[in-house]
């Protein structure tokens, strides 16, 4: 149990730094989404491995919106209002930059952790 908790924390720490990239990439692919939908979608894609906590998601969404990487639309859904986020032109450019950065990070980590594979 304790080990599992540690493992979850570890995974989350790794994902935490990539939260903005994950959100931007997701909105770039899926079009507009609302907060709860994003949490569910990330959970589904990562087969439940990565759960975005609400306490982390909303501050990040608001930050990306303030930076002009996301734009919002508010619509009435049933008996309540819903705020949809979609990616902006600047957001799309940012995704490309961040993905390149992340890919090179993964490559570097792989060669660092598995030098033998690199040699072969």
């Amino acid at each position, binding site marked *: 149990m304790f080990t599992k908790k540690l493992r979850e924390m570890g995974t989350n720490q790794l994902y935490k730094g990539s939260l903005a990239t994950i959100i931007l990439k997701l909105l770039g692919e899926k079009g507009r989404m*609302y*907060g*709860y*939908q994003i949490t*569910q979608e990330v959970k589904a894609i990562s087969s439940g491995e990565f759960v975005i*906590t*609400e*306490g982390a998601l*909303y*501050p990040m969404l*608001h*930050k990306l*919106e*303030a*930076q002009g990487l996301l734009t*919002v639309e*508010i619509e009435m*859904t*049933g*008996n*309540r*209002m*819903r*705020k949809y986020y979609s990616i902006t032109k600047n957001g799309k450019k940012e995704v490309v930059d961040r993905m390149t950065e992340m890919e090179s990070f993964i490559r570097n980590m792989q060669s660092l952790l598995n030098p033998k594979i690199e040699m072969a």
Partner: protein
Amino acid sequence: MTERKLTPEQIENLFSFCEEQEVYHYDLQMELVDHLAAAIEQKWQEEPKLNYNKALWAVFDQFGVSGFRKIRRAKEKELRKKYSRVLWQYIGEFFKLPKIILTIAITLILFGIFRKSENNLDKFLLLLFPYLIFLAVIQFMNKKKYQISLVPGKSFLLNDHLKWIKSRFDVSFQVPTFALIFYIEYLQRTNAYQAHNAYVELLIAFLVTFFSIFLVAMSIYVPKRIKEDFIREFPQFVKS
């Protein structure tokens, strides 16, 4: 079997719940209510008989120990950062072509006024009269720019931020007024034959110009942007 949905009363209850959790602004409440509602309805798909309150607290637990507080603080911080960026970007334009020409022109005109006044108070006041008119116009404009006619009964973070900027503007507005009073004092005390330093006068001319740009940004440009953003997001809450 039809899916269990929240009733309008339960939605209203979620808004009250947000207030209990120290989220008082509708722009944030609305998003959190939708999240809670969507999560509760999802829970009901798995356990249709689950009590509303139990479902609500289970969903709220997902927000962690800090609950909504962390989200509210982060949102306030982001709003401040966003419009501070808007402010400095606007000011920055006056130091790039083409607007830099205007900045240089105003600085040189003010510098000319200082030189021409030759430490003579009457001349100085006469030449500076247009600047005082500019300050009066700014003060007049700001009253109009800082108001959004809202449907009563709701408060918005964005509108509160507009009021916050206004309070900053009110303080900033005092600066050129005091600067002028000090300069007039200085002129009254200084011997007219004393040589006046051209560099100091050029510096003062530049500072007055810079501050004027700052005031225009604070009183006209930034509130205009906030109002545009507000009207785009919440047109239904603006009184026509």
